[in-house]
């Protein structure tokens, strides 16, 4: 999916503009409502981790079409783009596993990292479906709830380590090599990895939103509310048994830095977002 949606915000804006034009031409159909909304700022990846986790910020922006079943009850479907941001933190992190070196000898690859911090950034296109109740009048209270399906359109992670030591332990010789660097054994200060892709799955969330709906002109309304989107499923349900730092004998000097999400260091990854939501609506 990622490959086809290069700029989700641009796409959404285009779609929003088209729908607004269409609705305006439809005239005074009070049974329908088109709205655009932005929300945030708390939007992060929640996961279980042996280390610490810092919930980051994100935003959502989208467009909704609502159909009024009666004056106080409507059903809506939206398309929104949402970003999620989190950091995984470990004061100290270590691992080891058996590998084979370029000379075809078995050894145990070991790594130790201090002040490890990995920042994850995800972008999702969400399709929320919700029911909305609202009170009569020009100043209304509203309550909306439902669920949404989210499709990953982007995902990256980037890692920093204050100190990383990689070494090779050869049990057959009872020796641990901390060098040479070209063989993948080295100590590095203030390491920053390149930005890597993080592929996550479809997310299903329960959503709830409540607040005030205020009429501002004959056809236009403004919503001011609070919302909570709570992820229900693990969005990294793949094999998370990768090693955090991967040794490749054909090119040992270039270690592969995997995301903690892909390793046993973190699991049960869910998307959570809450905060304020502002909506501009047209009947």
């Amino acid at each position, binding site marked *: 999916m990622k490959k086809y949606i290069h700029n989700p915000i641009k796409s959404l804006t285009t779609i929003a503009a088209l729908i607004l034009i269409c609705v305006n031409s439809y005239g005074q159909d009070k049974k329908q409502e088109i709205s655009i909304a932005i929300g945030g700022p708390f939007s992060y990846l929640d996961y279980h981790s042996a280390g610490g986790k810092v919930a980051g910020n994100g935003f959502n922006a989208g467009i909704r079409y609502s159909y009024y079943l009666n004056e106080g009850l409507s059903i809506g479907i939206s398309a929104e783009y949402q970003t999620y941001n989190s950091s995984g933190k470990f004061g100290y992190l270590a691992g080891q596993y058996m590998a084979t070196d*370029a000379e075809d000898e078995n050894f145990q690859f070991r790594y130790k990292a201090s002040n490890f911090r990995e920042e994850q950034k995800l972008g999702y296109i969400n399709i929320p479906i919700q029911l909305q109740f609202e009170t009569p009048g020009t100043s209304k209270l509203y309550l909306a709830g439902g669920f949404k399906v989210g499709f990953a359109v982007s995902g990256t992670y980037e890692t920093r380590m204050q100190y990383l030591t990689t070494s090779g332990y050869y049990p057959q*010789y*009872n020796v641990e090599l901390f*060098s040479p*660097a*070209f*063989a993948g054994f080295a100590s590095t200060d203030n390491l920053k990895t390149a930005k890597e892709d993080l592929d996550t799955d479809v997310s299903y969330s329960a959503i709830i939103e409540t607040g005030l709906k205020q009429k501002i002109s004959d056809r236009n309304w403004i919503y001011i509310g609070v919302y909570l989107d709570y992820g229900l499923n693990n969005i990294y349900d793949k094999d998370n048994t990768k090693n955090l730092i991967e040794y490749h004998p054909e090119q040992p*000097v270039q270690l592969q830095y995997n995301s903690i999400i892909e390793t046993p260091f973190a699991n049960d990854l869910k998307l959570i977002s809450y905060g304020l939501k502002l909506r501009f609506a047209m009947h």
Partner: protein
Amino acid sequence: MPVRYSFTYASALPAATVSASGFVNLLRSGQLEITAHQDGDANYLAAADVSQILVIKNNDVTVTSITIGGEVFNNPAKDITYLLECGENNPNISILNNTNATITPSANFIVQTPKPGIYTQNVGITSQDGSTTANYIIRVEKPFGFYDIVKQKFNNVLLVNNNPQTNGGYEFVAYQWFKNGQLIGTGQYYTAGDDVSNVLDPNAVYSVKMTTKDGSVLQTCESVITIQNSLTAKLYPNPVEIGKTLTVEADFPAEDLQNMQISLYTVSGKLIKTVQSSSVITEIQLPQATESNMYLVVLESGSIKKSFKVIVK
């Protein structure tokens, strides 16, 4: 009547001399027979001769020399160490004493040296008269064959095998590495450097001294290093992005690296560029544009020719 003395002996040299007046001058160990004579005169007959055997024993424990293998230690110290030559085994030990002392275990014996290590033999010297003893400690050190205990890796690392299960039962706690007799490191392994071009010196001799858990210092024979080229080449990254740098790593012997030529072709066989290189790592700048989504990279160097496909994205 006066008494006079005479003496007789069976050995080549007398153990002592006895003057006529009876003064005995001890010269060496051995035995002699001293006879007392009392001659008669006009009034008396001569008395019958009386003889007595005199045994002289030595208290000297001097060891003149100790010979171990081919080396002679003259006037040896009480504690001597002999380092076996590489390949030498089970040296013969001879202890030379000229004073008839008793040597334990014996004046000639063999020290069995089945594996590298230090073999200690105590030698006791007891003087002929039993009054004096001396003790000598003879240490025979059998060195390791260099590659019996050292493993070479990546043409860059020399490491000491410290696994008792695979090294013959040794447990080392300290190390000293030598290159041409100069100390170059004190770790369990020595590395020539962090870069792939830092290889061990094939023109030098290396050795290592190892201290065992019980404090003995063992050493290896000196050895030259043979650089092993895998004769392989690597290209990375693959796939590579247009306009980026492609790295070629050729693990060829130095003589083959001379005048190495790296050529890039398109899939249709059109030559894009040729680079001359004589180093292990060569970086090739790819052109900014290409109609090909794959390059053929050909390495030619002496007798070696290798070709690779690189995907361009």
